[in-house]
């Protein structure tokens, strides 16, 4: 009722505006940083809703009523000024203001003139604006990630799949996958999850230049074009309790939504070409924005049909209803990507491959302002990704047998040696996401911003699955084979979450700000609020203590959890094909091969979500024009995913004297092997120190300096799991086939990467020149636990596991149970002091148009590094190639003016 009264009062007053004769005056002059008068600035007395515009000499004059009011001065590109003024009837108030440049345009690029030296948010994050993205000529979100401290420099482009990783340096393949899997990408408020990606096993060889799919790890960042991004926020610290299903961190992408111009852009470098067309209209407080992007990238300019193309479109419709009380936005995204590898002349394997994705995303968001202090936010989205991976190639194997038995059973097989195989993996990864959040601002001694929310996420894959001729499989290895498979029986993965957050600060935000959050996630199957894969209560706390005006201390603690993916939960089954009778003959009719098939399901129903605990502490200090910030963090990840659980197989081999009658079969031999399934065995301790020094524009040199140093130490280790010998070993004393296992050997990686940024932002010239030097001060990794050389136990050829007692283990166990690593394995790999210099230039050519040019690795420096953990000499070439590219953009509206 109080509020309604207040609104009524305001309304009454505004009616009076026209009736009352004003006699209080405020006047003055508005100038820019250099003292030149600013014409056209908006000056508003907010409470009385009276305002004016400064004249050509910068003067303004407003008549109003006596009393307290808020003066607000705005001018495009300048920082907003607000001040509380007390007008009286007796004397005209004179107020002169100097406005500070906030951003300016270089052609179509919006350049943020100054970043704040003292960050205003309590968690560690990097905010990257559209200007920086355009200046570096990013093609996709992955290139943008280069601007985050601690990332090793790479040339931008779309040639190969790219994933994100935050604050963890993993040299182990499984650990690396966990890092990118645990990095959540949020597109306009909705997570783009990779949980339903089922493009398993689509690779043909292990060569690096291959088209790769990203199942069990993070999404391929190439699918998000950089040109329509307004802002990217990379949260490295403790995120708000609004965010779940993550471990490493968050990359929040906000696309452009309320533009009023039309802009065309063209990018070119040796391997990439990209055209972008975007803009928007405004009519009756409604915005319609569009963006169209086409990019084409060749992996190797010498080889035809080996390329990546992307067509991406976006439509955004936002409207403000009932005097901004309801703000609704509807967004549609469409991405079609073609990662192609055509038939190469001279390729004897006749390899043809592609990964074609067809992505459709729909997001609806509405924000209701219930009262001045209460808000309701509702989001619903549906994402679908039709993934189609195709591999056609000649399979040449050793002469072997094959069967197409789909269940347990025995059947006559056939001999094969080579054939043309065609594999299609068709997945349709979908997720629906619903979020409701209620926010209330309250004043109770302190300022509270209280939010409650609920998120429901349902992820499934109902694609056609793996399609191929069962007698012509995409590859044959050993007698552990695979079969075609449909994805129609895979249950949906559900994530149900509730969260609460209170952002508390003292009045005027003078002493502290405290964010308290609590989140509940339950990861289940098919229905919401089931918890087959775990339930988690995750507290999140961020505290900022303001130590005077120029210094602050920030402390954060938080827990996060990440669900396993469908492809970890429901991997392809294993078909163990045993050759009971194997009699090859050069004469077809005399051949006889009888194969028994045993089907093993590789799913692990015990698989739970993984968890990370984050702790960080930061100190920010501002000294005149220099901002200094130091952050220390210590993160533990538990129960990460790795395919490390070993399951033994033991089967008998039979003879069938009266084949095809199997009734008289008798055991003639046995066969044994092992396979692995996913388990929660991977843990990581990631600790580090981040330091940044940045200056405001230095007066004499017209430049800004920014130095960012990031040190990280990551220790990845496996828990409750063992490292097995790759073969069954034979021993004199045991005489058996034995597969010993040991405690795993783990790895520590450590690096210190320093970025030196020098920015010349010359507004008058319309130029922006950036010199970036990156120094890898060191990049090390080494093994730990190498001396733990005695086996824990063994599996025998009947599939039985024996664990040694401590006395047995330390006693006289045979040499096959010892794991002695050669001395070079103890070496530390250490790349030291590797520098790379890059240059970026953007220059306006006429109003609304600019060109940008960049050169990476200007000095073409490629230091050789001699690897240490190799038995013989081997070298690697450091640093990406010398590379350059150019871009042109123009605002179409400005062209015809």
């Amino acid at each position, binding site marked *: 009722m109080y509020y309604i009264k207040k609104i009524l009062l305001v309304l009454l007053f505004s009616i009076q505006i026209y009736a009352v004769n004003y006699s209080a005056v405020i006047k003055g002059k508005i100038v820019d940083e250099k003292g030149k008068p600013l014409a056209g600035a908006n000056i508003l007395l907010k409470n009385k809703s009276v305002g004016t515009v400064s004249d050509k000499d910068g003067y303004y004059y407003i008549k109003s009523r006596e009393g307290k009011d808020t003066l607000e001065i705005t001018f495009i590109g300048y920082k907003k000024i607000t001040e509380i003024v007390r007008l009286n009837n007796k004397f005209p108030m004179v107020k002169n203001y100097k406005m500070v440049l906030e951003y300016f345009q270089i052609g179509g690029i919006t350049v943020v003139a100054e970043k704040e030296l003292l960050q205003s948010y309590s968690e560690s994050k990097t905010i990257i604006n559209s200007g920086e993205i355009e200046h570096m000529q990013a093609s996709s979100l992955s290139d943008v990630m280069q601007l985050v401290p601690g990332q090793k420099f790479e040339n931008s482009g779309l040639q190969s799949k790219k994933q994100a990783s935050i604050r963890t340096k993993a040299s182990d393949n499984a650990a690396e996958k966990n890092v990118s899997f645990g990095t959540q990408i949020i597109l306009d408020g909705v997570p783009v999850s990779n949980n339903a990606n089922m493009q398993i096993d689509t690779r043909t060889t292990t060569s690096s230049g291959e088209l790769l799919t990203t199942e069990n790890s993070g999404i391929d960042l190439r699918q998000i074009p950089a040109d329509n991004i307004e802002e990217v926020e990379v949260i490295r610290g403790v995120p708000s309790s609004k965010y779940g299903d993550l471990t490493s961190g968050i990359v929040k992408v906000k696309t452009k939504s309320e533009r009023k111009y039309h802009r065309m852009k063209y990018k070119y470098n040796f391997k990439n070409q990209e055209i972008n067309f975007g803009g928007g209209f405004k009519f009756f407080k409604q915005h319609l924005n569009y963006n169209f992007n086409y990019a084409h990238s060749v992996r190797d300019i010498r080889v035809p049909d080996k390329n990546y193309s992307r067509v991406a479109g976006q439509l955004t419709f936002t409207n403000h209803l009932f005097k901004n009380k309801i703000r609704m936005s509807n967004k549609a995204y469409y991405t079609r990507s073609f990662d192609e590898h055509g038939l190469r002349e001279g390729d004897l394997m006749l390899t043809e491959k592609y990964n074609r994705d067809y992505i459709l995303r729909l997001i609806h968001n509405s924000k209701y302002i219930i009262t001045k202090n209460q808000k309701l936010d509702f989001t619903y989205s549906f994402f679908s990704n039709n993934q189609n991976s195709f591999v056609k190639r000649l399979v040449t194997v050793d002469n072997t047998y094959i069967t197409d038995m789909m269940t347990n059973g025995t059947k006559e097989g056939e001999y094969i040696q080579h054939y043309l195989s065609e594999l299609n993996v068709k997945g349709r990864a979908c997720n629906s996401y619903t979020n409701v959040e209620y926010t209330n601002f309250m004043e109770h001694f302190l300022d509270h911003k209280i939010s409650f929310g609920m998120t429901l996420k349902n992820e499934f894959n109902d694609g056609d699955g793996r399609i191929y001729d069962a007698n012509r499989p995409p590859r044959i290895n050993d007698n552990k084979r695979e079969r075609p498979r449909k994805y129609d029986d895979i249950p949906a993965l559900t994530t149900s979450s509730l969260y609460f957050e209170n952002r508390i600060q003292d009045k005027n935000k003078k002493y502290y700000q405290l964010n308290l959050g609590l989140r509940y996630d339950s990861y289940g199957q098919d229905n919401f609020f089931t918890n087959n894969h775990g339930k988690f209560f995750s507290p999140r706390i961020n505290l900022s203590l303001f130590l005077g005006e120029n210094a602050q201390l920030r402390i954060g603690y938080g827990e996060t959890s990440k669900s396993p993916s469908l492809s970890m939960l429901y991997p392809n089954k294993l078909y163990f094909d045993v050759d009971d009778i194997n009699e090859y003959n050069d004469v077809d009719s005399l051949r006889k091969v009888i194969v028994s098939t045993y089907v093993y399901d590789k799913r692990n129903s015990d698989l739970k979500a993984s968890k990370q605990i984050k702790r960080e502490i930061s100190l920010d200090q501002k000294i005149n024009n220099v901002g200094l910030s130091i952050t220390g963090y210590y993160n533990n990840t538990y129960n990460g995913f790795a395919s490390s659980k070993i399951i033994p197989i033991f089967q008998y081999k039979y003879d069938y004297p009266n084949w095809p009658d199997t009734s008289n079969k008798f055991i003639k031999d046995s066969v044994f092997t092992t396979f692995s399934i996913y388990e929660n065995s991977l843990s990581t301790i990631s600790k580090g120190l981040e330091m940044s020094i940045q200056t405001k524009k230095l007066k004499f040199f017209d430049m800004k300096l920014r130095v960012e140093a990031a040190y990280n130490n990551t220790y990845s280790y496996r828990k409750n799991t063992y490292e097995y010998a790759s*073969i069954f070993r034979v021993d004199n004393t045991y005489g058996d086939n034995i597969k010993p296992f040991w405690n795993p050997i783990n790895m520590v990686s450590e690096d210190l990467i320093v970025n030196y940024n020098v920015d010349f932002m010359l507004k008058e010239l319309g130029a922006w020149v950036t010199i970036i030097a990156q120094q890898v001060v060191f990049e090390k990794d080494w093994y730990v636990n190498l001396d733990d050389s005695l086996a824990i136990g063994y599996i025998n050829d009947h599939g039985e596991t024996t664990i040694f007692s401590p006395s047995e283990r330390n006693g006289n166990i045979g040499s096959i149970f010892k794991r002695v690593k*050669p001395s070079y394995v103890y070496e530390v790999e250490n790349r030291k002091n590797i520098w790379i210099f890059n240059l970026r230039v953007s220059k306006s050519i006429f109003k609304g148009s600019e060109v940008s040019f960049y050169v990476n690795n200007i000095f073409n420096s490629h230091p050789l590094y001699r690897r240490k953990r190799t038995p013989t000499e081997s070298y690697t070439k450091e640093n990406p190639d010398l590379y350059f590219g150019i871009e042109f953009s123009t605002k179409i509206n400005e062209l015809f003016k």
Partner: protein
Amino acid sequence: MKKNKKIIPLFFIIIVAFFSCEEDIIKPDSMRITLRVEVIDTSIFTKTLSGDSLVSNANVYINSISYSQQKEALTDSNGVAVFENLLPDNYSITISKNISKEDAMKVNGNYVRWIMSNQIQDTMLFDIIDKEIEIRIILKLIKPGTLIFSEIYYNGSPANPIPYYFHDQFTEIYNNSSETIYLDSLMIADVDYGHKDEDVIHSIHSYMFPGDGTTYPIAPGEYVIVAQDAINHSEINPGSVDLHNADFEYYVKDHGDVDNPDITNMIQIQHKYGIDFLYSVMNDAIVLMKVKDPFALGYDTFDCLLLPKSAVIDGVEYREKLSEMDKKRLDATIDGGITGGLEMYQGKSIERKFERFEDDRAILMDNNNSSIDFHVLDTATIGYNYDVNKIE
């Protein structure tokens, strides 16, 4: 506009960065050298036969490592062989002399085959002043190999029509001695790359001949064929070999391999990976050995089986690039050289050279140096098909 000046030096640097220099390599023709190899034998043989220790009529082979060139010469009556016009390089020098039956009878009174030989590996021959280098080598008396690899076809067939067809690999073992030898429980093993142990080899695959000690005899001058798959490969890939009559085959149990029931299977001792015992089509070393207990030394950390070097009867190392002497797997006690030099999938083969006849039986060259002992055949040939007219 004055601010542009700051950018100019940078562009200058970029331009400079585009130009790089390359030095012309001067051909070292002017630096050719002469090598004199003096061969000495301190044993009773030479002293008894010629009164001094200078060895005449010994074969001296020198092998230039970077240029893969081979030269040979006989020592004169002063025991000296001279090589002129050599390019400075790293060379391996191998000397061998057969002791003839008559000479052996003269000295010992009875005949046991002996060879006098020695080799120097990877020695740098370079002299800028005198341009003449003298090396003195003292010979050792060794017993020549009895069972040896006479041919190893590892190269794989050309794509006709199937690419990368290597399942037709085979190994031919020859009895170079004058007595019947039994193959029973001998082993064929490959040697993993990158280990520098003194007395063990690391084996990825090892297979043993079956038999109870006298089951599989091999007479002097006879051979056996061990096939990867004992089938007629020319039916699958025309131009390949027919191995359906091989003596033995590697059947890899429970890894998906096919089995020709008519051919004796080798016994699997060690099999780390693969559907078959594949010899690398590029670089590998294959050894024949007699080990009492192959599991006695256990395994290394990479699950390779450790086998004693002392048990090796014969070994051959081949590489795609003959100059890569630094990447050798076998030391000079087994094989001091490398053979091959073949691109993959040419259908070519490596075969031991013919040395001489003894009692109508071909004796094949065995200097423990495959650079000298082996030559390349354009096609794989089953059996030792020496052509008397072409004998070198």
